[in-house]
């Protein structure tokens, strides 16, 4: 196969573009696509301070590399979830990349912040590990961005992630989730005028046009030493099963993922956004101040604080949990 740009030997085929690329032109293609995505969806400006959630995996490290090369002011944020050796190796990959590129990295530890690891939380709350993990990450990423004064929270969600989420939302007709699925979630404020305060930092996903296979290829070709192993808690995860199903469809019909996601954004997402299924009122959490739903009765308490309280209650009732291993950078 030949590179579509220079006709030299190709290293990667992108079947949905019906094209092959040599190393040089593949890297250029990815960088151009990400720059175009940032501009098209008005994600951020060169003067914005970006906080990038990094996991040590291919997507977040590739995105860090791309944003640094494009000249953005981006700081990595790693949250140690306490998932044994997997978390240790993930943190080491982030630190190694930051050191290599002389990039800024903030490391926080879930056990030190809240007194539990993800495996422990799963046991205490009797929830699937990925559920508690996702809630904690969303909460901690936003909290870190607010506390450290960042303008934008950036995540490495790729096309496969977005299509799998969309697939799941459609399978279950989660219309409220469909109304919120977008490459950009705008900042949310409480109050008005001088008393207005940001409660949700603007969130953006610059890799939404990149297939997972392309971000992996980018990381490999740039010599980025990312964590290849899968999280040990992900086995049986529904999102992963959706990805496998969608990848089979993509193999049979290249372009399926792009058509599904960008067709949704163009043709369906505005309809869900215009017709919310619930007329919800938002309020600050009475315990931590984060945004949450205003209940019909009583004080508003966010999902994170409810989960944390449940974990504390179960611990006091004597539910056994693994020992927390504390570790700093």
């Amino acid at each position, binding site marked *: *196969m030949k590179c579509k740009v220079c006709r030299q030997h*190709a*290293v*990667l*085929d992108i*079947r949905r573009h019906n094209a*092959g690329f040599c190393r040089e032109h593949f890297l250029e293609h990815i960088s151009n696509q990400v720059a175009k995505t940032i501009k098209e969806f008005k994600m951020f400006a060169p003067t914005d301070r970006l906080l990038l959630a990094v996991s040590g*995996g*291919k*997507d977040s490290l590739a995105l860090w590399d791309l944003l640094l090369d494009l000249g953005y002011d981006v700081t990595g944020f790693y949250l140690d979830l306490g998932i044994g050796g997997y978390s240790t190796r993930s943190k080491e990959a982030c630190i190694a990349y930051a050191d290599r590129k002389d990039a800024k990295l903030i490391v926080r530890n879930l056990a030190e912040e809240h007194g539990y690891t993800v495996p422990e939380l799963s046991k205490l709350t009797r929830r699937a590990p*990925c*559920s508690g*993990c*996702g*809630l904690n*990450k*969303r909460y901690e990423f936003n909290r870190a961005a607010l506390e450290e004064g960042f303008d934008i929270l950036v*995540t490495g*969600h790729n096309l*496969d*992630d977005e299509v799998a*989420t969309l697939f*799941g939302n459609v399978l279950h007709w989660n219309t409220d989730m469909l109304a919120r699925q977008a490459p950009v979630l705008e900042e949310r404020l409480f109050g008005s005028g001088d008393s207005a305060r940001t409660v949700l930092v603007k969130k953006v996903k610059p890799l939404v046009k990149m297939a*997972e*296979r392309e*971000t*992996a*290829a980018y990381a*490999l*070709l740039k010599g980025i030493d990312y964590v*290849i*192993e*899968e*999280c040990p808690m*992900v086995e049986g*995860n529904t*999102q*992963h099963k959706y*990805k*496998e199903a969608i*990848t*089979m469809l*993509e*193999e049979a019909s290249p372009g399926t993922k792009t058509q599904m996601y960008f067709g949704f954004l163009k043709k369906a997402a505005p309809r869900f956004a215009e017709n919310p299924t619930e007329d919800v009122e938002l309020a600050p959490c009475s315990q931590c101040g984060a945004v949450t739903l205003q209940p019909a009765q009583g004080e508003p308490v966010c999902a994170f604080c409810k989960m944390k309280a449940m974990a504390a209650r179960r611990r006091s009732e004597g539910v056994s949990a693994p020992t927390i291993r504390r570790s700093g950078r």
Partner: protein
Amino acid sequence: MKVKLRNPDRVVEVSGPKNVLMLLQHLQIVPESVLVIRDSTLLTRDETLTDSDEVEVRPVLSGGARR
């Protein structure tokens, strides 16, 4: 040829010659779900592999919570 597979890490022996697509079909792996690597370089589906080759088939699909 020696083929390194991941999650968990293991090595299997496959007879050549085969191109990359034939190798993946033999292993019952969906080509869109992996990268095939030889000597730190990526291989396209039409590349021919022989008995003396050592390649890695690296999965690219990651899983996790809906974020």
